[in-house]
C-alpha cells in the first residue's frame, strides 16, 4: 500500500543520527516525556528518546535484573544498553514517571554506571505548588548539564531553545492537521516515522525534513484505501511496523495519543520570563499520562475531543503488558468510550512488535464490528 506514495516520509534516522554524532552533536538519552526535551536542545546537545528499535534477541539479560514482570519497554532498553547498542548516548536523563522507569534508572546506574545519569522528581499533580517544585527540579538538571557538558544553559539560551522547539512543534501540528481531513495525504505509519525521527534527531536536522514534507503534502493523495479511521491510545510506540500492521487491515490511523505520537506532544510550550516555570507547567499540565493523579477528566476529554476532531470511527487502546497505570486506566477508558458509544478495542502488547497474526485477527474483527 505504501509503495503508492512518494518518498518524502522516507527518513533515515540511523544515518542522520550517525552524521549528527560525527559532527560532535551530543545525544542525551531520555525515556519519558516528563523530561523537558526542549531544554536539551542547547548548543551541541540534543535530546534522544531512547528506544530499542532493532532489538531482535529478546530480553534474557535484562530479565535477570528487572524480572519478567516489568514493562517490556524498560526491559528492552536495558537489554539494548547491555548489548552496547546505546553506547552513543552521552548522558541519561530519567524521570520518576512510573515504577518501572524508576527501576530502569536504578539498574542502568548499577550495571552501566553512565558518566551522566540524572533522575527528575516529577510530581503527580499539576497545581501551582507542583509546578514550582518541578521547575526547581528542572533548574537543578540544567545546572548539572551545564557543569558536566560545559554547555551554556543560561535563561536566554533555554528560552531560545524553547522557541525553536515551539516552531518545530507548530510545523508538525500543521502536518498533523491534515489527518483531520477526509483523505489525509499520508498514512499513520508514515506519520509515525516522522515523529520517531523528530524525537531522536537534532532539531536542526529535522527542520528541513519537516519543511520539505509540508511543501509536498498538497500534491499527495491518501496512500490507503481505508475502511475505518482509528485513534491509537497507548504509552510508548516505537515500532512503525505495529502501526503498519494495523493499517494493512484496511484502517487508517489518523490520531495517536501515545508518548511518541502527536497528541498532546505537539502542544506549544508557553513562554514568559521564567523558562523553567514555563516548561514545568507545560509538562505537568499537558501531560496525558495516567500517572497524573489530578488530570483524569482532562485525559478523558482529550480522547473524546480527538475522536471528534479527527473523525475517528474506532479507538484502539493498547497498554504495554505489566504497566500498572495503563492497565488500570485502560479499564476506565473502555468504560468511558463505551458510555459514549464509541467503538473501542483493547489490545495488550509487548513493546517490541510481535504476534502479527493475532493482531490482524483482532483488528480485522474490530473493523468488521465497526462497519456492521
Amino acid at each position: 500500500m505504501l509503495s503508492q506514495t512518494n518518498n518524502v516520509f522516507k527518513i533515515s534516522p540511523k544515518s542522520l543520527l550517525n552524521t549528527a554524532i560525527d559532527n560532535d552533536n551530543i545525544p542525551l538519552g531520555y525515556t519519558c516525556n516528563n523530561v523537558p526535551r526542549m531544554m536539551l536542545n542547547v548548543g551541541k546537545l540534543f535530546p534522544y528518546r531512547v528506544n530499542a528499535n532493532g532489538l531482535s534477541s529478546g530480553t534474557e539479560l535484562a530479565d535477570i535484573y528487572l524480572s519478567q514482570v516489568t514493562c517490556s519497554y524498560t526491559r528492552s532498553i536495558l537489554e539494548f544498553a547491555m548489548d552496547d547498542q546505546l553506547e552513543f548516548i552521552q548522558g541519561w536523563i530519567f524521570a520518576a514517571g512510573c515504577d518501572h522507569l524508576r527501576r530502569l534508572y536504578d539498574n542502568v546506574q548499577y550495571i552501566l554506571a553512565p558518566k551522566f545519569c540524572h533522575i527528575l522528581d516529577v510530581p503527580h499533580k499539576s497545581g501551582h505548588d507542583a509546578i514550582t517544585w518541578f521547575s526547581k527540579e528542572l533548574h537543578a538538571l540544567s545546572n548539572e548539564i551545564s557543569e558536566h557538558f560545559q554547555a551554556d544553559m543560561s535563561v536566554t539560551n533555554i528560552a531560545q531553545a524553547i522557541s525553536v522547539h515551539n516552531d518545530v512543534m507548530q510545523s508538525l501540528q500543521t502536518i498533523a492537521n491534515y489527518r483531520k481531513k477526509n483523505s489525509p495525504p499520508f498514512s499513520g505509519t508514515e506519520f509515525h516515522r516522522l515523529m520517531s525521527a523528530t524525537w531522536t534527531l537534532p532539531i536542526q536536522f529535522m527542520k528541513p525534513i519537516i519543511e520539505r514534507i509540508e511543501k509536498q503534502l498538497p500534491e499527495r493523495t491518501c496512500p490507503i484505501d481505508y475502511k475505518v479511521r482509528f485513534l491509537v491510545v497507548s504509552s510508548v510506540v516505537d515500532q512503525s511496523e505495529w502501526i503498519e500492521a494495523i493499517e494493512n487491515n484496511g484502517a487508517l490511523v489518523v490520531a495517536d495519543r501515545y508518548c511518541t505520537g502527536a497528541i498532546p506532544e505537539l502542544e506549544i510550550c508557553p513562554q514568559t520570563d521564567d523558562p523553567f516555570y514555563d516548561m514545568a507547567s507545560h509538562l505537568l499540565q499537558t501531560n496525558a499520562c495516567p500517572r497524573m493523579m489530578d488530570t483524569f477528566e482532562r485525559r478523558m476529554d482529550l480522547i473524546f475531543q480527538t475522536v471528534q476532531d479527527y473523525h475517528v470511527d474506532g479507538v484502539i487502546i493498547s497498554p504495554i503488558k505489566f504497566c500498572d497505570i495503563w492497565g488500570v486506566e485502560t479499564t476506565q477508558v473502555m468504560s468511558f468510550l463505551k458510555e459514549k458509544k464509541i467503538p473501542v478495542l483493547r489490545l495488550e502488547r509487548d513493546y517490541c512488535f510481535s504476534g502479527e497474526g493475532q493482531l490482524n485477527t483482532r483488528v480485522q474483527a474490530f473493523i468488521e464490528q465497526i462497519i456492521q
Partner: protein
Amino acid sequence: MSVISNIQDQMVFYQSWIKNYQNIIKMPLRHGPIQTFQNVNKYPWLWHLAKVNRLLTMVTNGRQGNYRKANAAVVEKIVPNLMHILDNLVHDTDRLVLHEDMVPPEILFAMGLKTWMSELLGILMPIVDSHSVEKYIDIAENAGIPPDVCSLPKSTMGVILNKEVPPVKAILTSNSPCDGGMASYQLIKNKLDIPMFQLDAPYNFYNDRAIDYFANELKRMIDWLEIHTPGKMDWDHLRVICDERNKMAAYELELWESIRQRPAPLAAEAIYLSHLWCFNVTPGDPSGTELFKYLVELANDNVQKNIAAVPNEKYRTVLWNPPLLHFIDLFSWAEQQYGLTLIIDSMSYNRQPFIDTSTIDSMLRGLAHIIMTGPMARHTRGPAQNYFNDMFYIYTYFDLDMIFVAGHIGCKNTAALNGILREKCRNKGIPLLIIDYDLSDPRVVSHDGIIQQLDRFMENIMNK
C-alpha cells in the same frame, strides 16, 4: 517443657480465646439483631472477619511462655479494635472517610472523623481465611483490571466494585506505595462518585525540601477535609495523639533493642503484627502503648531468665516486603522445622519513629516524614539505595543470618531490584531467599509451594 508450663500455655490460649469471643459477640449486641442481619447481608465479608479468633490459634501454635503470651496479647488488641472499627458501619457515617493504608489516620482522628481503611479487608481477610479475598480479586479482574496488578489493590477494588464498601463520604489517598495502588483510586472514586484528595509524596524524600512540600500537602488535605466533611481540626487533640504515638514508639525501640540479642526473647508476630496494627490502624490509642509496654516487659523478662522465644533458635532472618498474608503461620512452621526465627520485617522498621509535637508545623513535618517513610512507601519510592541501605543495615543491626524477600508477584517495583539484590547479597556472602508467591492469592503459589521453596533453600544453601 514441664506440665505446669504446658498448662499455663493452655491457659494463656483459652483466656485469650474467651476474651476475644466476648469482644466479637458484643458487636451484634451493640447493633441489635435487625441491624446485624442487615450488615451481614450488605457486607458478606463480616463472616470472614468474625473468624478473627483463628488468628489466635495461628500465632500461638507451637509458641511457649512469654512468646505465646505476647502473641496472644497482640490478637487481644486487634479484636476489640476491629469490632470498634466495624461500629463505623452504622454510627456517624456522615463522618466516615475512606483512607488508603499509606495515609495513616492520626489527622482524621484529630478532626473527629471516623475512618475506614480501604485495604483493611484485603490485609486482614486472607490472614484469617487464606482464600477469602479470591472472590474480590476475581471481581476486579472480570471488570478488566489486568491479572498482573498487585492483588491488594485488586481485592480492594473488588470490594468496591461489588458495592460492599461502608457508606463513606470522602476518599483520602496518595501516590504510595506503588503505581497499581495509586491508579486504583481513580477507579474507586469513579465508582463511589464522592470527593477524593490525593497526597503527592516526592520521589526522593529524605530532605527538607521534600518534607516541606509534603507538610504543605497535609495542610491542603486538612483544608480540603474541613470543606468536604463535618470534621474540624483540633490541633491539641492531634498533639495528644502524636504524644501517645511517640510513647508507643519509644517502647517499640526498647523492644527492638531486646530482639537484637541472640537468642531473641520475642519474635515474629509479637514484633511485626503489633507494629502493623498499632502504628497503621490505631496510632495514638493508649491501649497500643500498653501493648508495647507489655511486650517490652515480656521480652525483658525472657532476657533476664535467658529464655529464647524460639527454644532452638538457629537462624535469624528479616522478612522483606509485607508478610505473606494468606500464610501467616509460615514462620511458626519454620521455627519448629528449622529453628528459623523471624526477627523483624521491613514494614515494621522505621527510621523516623518520633513526632516533634512542640508546634503545629513541627507536628505536620513529623507526620509528613512518617508518611513518606511509611511501610513499603520508603522502599518502593525513591532510589534503590532506600531499599538496600535499610535492608543491609537491618541485617547487621539485628545480627541476622539470612534475608528473606517475600517476592510478591504483583510487586514489580521490588521485583525489578531482584537482580541487583542477588549480586549484592552474593558479594556480601548473605544467604538470600526470594519467595515467589502472591500476597493475597494462594492460587498463584500454594502453601505447599512456598514451603517447598523454603525447604530447598534450607537444604541447598544452608545445608540443612
